[in-house]
């Protein structure tokens, strides 16, 4: 039925399978949309946030998806600026994943504010000294860049491409894509960093506070670095999942391995910096505020040293070591393990930098603040996943995203 829309020379599942998938995921999406509307109409009392937890699950989800969406800017940077041309076989998908991540992040931010109708104040009445202002500006601008990178992909749809103007537009946009990619890399450097700065500048919150250079705390640079390291891991992971679901090979191994190798070295250097940062913070920054490191990891039901181990060792050192060894990234199982661990590692890092910052008691006569999200928060956090799955499904079905797909999956000529 929809064969006219499907890219030439590529095989797709029957329409009923596709519709069924969209329907099932769509149900989850609607659940999330319902929760989102509840939050907008009834206000943030629908959440389990409270005066101790001004930031909670959503801000974590925001930071996490943006870190994972970092694959788009970093592979764009590698392809267009460094000149790693093999990545052209993965860049389209990285852009789509980035687009999903960033649109989700903006949506979450729109739900997360108490007065959504006043959200534009962050732009209009901007306080440039606030890390959140920098986040909002760079995020919106970078989302615009991702949209620009996504448009030519949409225009490559068989039917749209027939329209001469769209064909030319797609061609012209491809032509100067490096300019957009460079702008995107510039913007990403700042907003990934300023997200790190969000907790890092809170000088009265000893768990999050970091020293730094000029106005930027060390977390600024660590966040950019970790997003560049772990974002591509997420791109690889989603590509592998897509290959599993569609039951065909979409990207050649050498492309994946190249990205995995770069990612591995990024992750290794990041984790060394992270260890130095943690060590300096534990022996210098925290004691200056009257805290021992163990004050942050004891006397509460959740946060223990295990979380530090999970983040740094399991989510950092292990995947870095796997990815930098040729055998590690060539082996499918260990490659997958490494990407999963790296994704977990960066997510734990973002969790810690949002929620643990608020959980730690600062006044000595207080105790730890604990929090569990309400179903509305969980539903709105799952919403982007469902939305992402649907967008990927539609994009994969109707757009020629993977240039190597026809070569890897030759279609026998069929009659009719």
């Amino acid at each position, binding site marked *: 039925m929809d064969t006219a829309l499907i890219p030439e020379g590529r095989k797709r599942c029957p329409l009923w399978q596709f519709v069924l998938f969209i329907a099932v995921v769509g149900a989850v999406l609607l659940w999330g949309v319902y929760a989102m509307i509840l939050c907008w109409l009834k206000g943030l009392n629908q959440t389990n946030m409270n005066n101790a937890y001004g930031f909670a699950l959503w801000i974590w989800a925001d930071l996490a998806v943006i870190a994972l969406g970092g694959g788009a800017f970093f592979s764009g940077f590698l392809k267009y600026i460094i000149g790693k041309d093999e990545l052209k076989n993965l860049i389209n998908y990285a852009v789509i994943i980035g687009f999903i991540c960033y649109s989700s992040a903006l949506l979450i931010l729109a739900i997360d504010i108490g007065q959504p109708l006043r959200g534009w104040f962050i732009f209009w009445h901007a306080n440039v000294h606030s890390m959140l202002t920098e986040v909002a500006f760079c995020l919106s601008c970078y989302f615009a860049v991702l949209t620009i990178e996504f448009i030519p992909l949409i225009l490559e749809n068989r039917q749209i491409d027939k329209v001469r103007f769209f064909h030319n537009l797609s061609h012209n946009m491809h032509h100067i894509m490096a300019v957009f990619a460079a702008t995107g890399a510039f913007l990403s450097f700042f907003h990934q960093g300023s997200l790190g700065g969000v907790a890092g500048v809170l000088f009265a919150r000893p768990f999050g506070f970091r020293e730094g250079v000029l106005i930027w705390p060390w977390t600024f640079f660590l966040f950019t670095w970790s997003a560049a390291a772990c974002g591509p891991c997420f791109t690889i992971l989603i590509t592998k999942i897509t290959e599993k679901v569609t039951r065909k090979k979409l990207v050649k191994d050498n492309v994946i391995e190249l990205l995995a190798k770069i990612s591995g070295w990024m992750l290794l250097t990041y984790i060394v910096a992270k260890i130095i940062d943690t060590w300096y913070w534990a022996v210098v920054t925290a004691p200056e505020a009257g805290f021992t490191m163990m004050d942050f990891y004891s006397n509460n039901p959740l946060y223990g040293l295990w979380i530090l181990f999970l983040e740094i060792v399991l989510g950092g050192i292990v995947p870095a070591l796997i990815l930098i060894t040729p055998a590690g990234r060539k082996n499918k199982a260990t490659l997958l393990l490494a990407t999963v661990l790296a994704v977990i590692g960066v997510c734990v890092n973002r969790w810690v930098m949002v929620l643990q910052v608020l959980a730690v008691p*600062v006044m000595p006569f207080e105790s730890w603040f604990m929090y569990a999200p309400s179903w509305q928060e969980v539903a709105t956090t799952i919403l982007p996943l469902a939305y992402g799955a649907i967008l990927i499904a539609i994009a994969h079905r109707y757009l020629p995203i993977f240039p190597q797909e026809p070569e890897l999956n030759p279609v026998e000529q069929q009659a009719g």
Partner: protein
Amino acid sequence: MKKAQEHTAPKKYGMVIDLDKCTGCGACMAACMAENNVPFREDETDKNLSITWLRVYKLTNGKKFPNADVCYLPRPCMHCEGHHGHSPCVSVCPATATDYSYDTGIVSQIYTRCFGCRYCMAACPYHVRYFNWWDPVWPEGMEKMLSPNVSVRTRGVVEKCSFCFHRYQIAMEKVRYEGRAELAEDEYQTACTQACPANAITFGDLNNHDHAVYKLKTHPDAFRLLERLGTNPKVYYISSREWVRRQGDNYLENEGKVVAKAH
């Protein structure tokens, strides 16, 4: 138009609270709620969801009878000066809804500008900032008792203690009418200060030699909460009890005796 404005020395309004006098009666909290149109809920059991600009904390020394001791600690907004007005909350607000005035030293919060991102709440270690999780609902007829001097807040914005700044504004009207240059100490006092039956709270200009707070802040037993974080708060506490002073800040084991820093 005359350019002769009120060219007076910058003030730094602050408080000194004598914890040895505080009985924990809560009159200051009640006065504050009434003065500032603070909304309340039918069920206030979860203090993390309700709004109390001035909150009285109960501190214990953790010892058993007969050495057990408690101390009540009223905690308004500290109106941190930080470093040149760079208080923890002011610089993080993305929409410039909160500001620090070099004229009075008061940290303001503009409810109509705030869009509820709650970054300032994350920044404040004293938990003085409260979010309006619900729209305010007053019992029938009570909305007529609201003070016209303080604007009422809506759902989805952050609010906090203003050192009853509207009282300063009202007091200044008279000062101007009478053609005086300066506000007298007793003309501008916060609601909690006046409500305290034990006279535990003293309020005034920390820069002014003639104000009571100027002398009290240099009391040998005076301390401020979380001073070593660099918040530079304008609320001082006095307690003769060492354990109370020690709970004013975090200390590593074996750190020396608690003495007030020079300020």
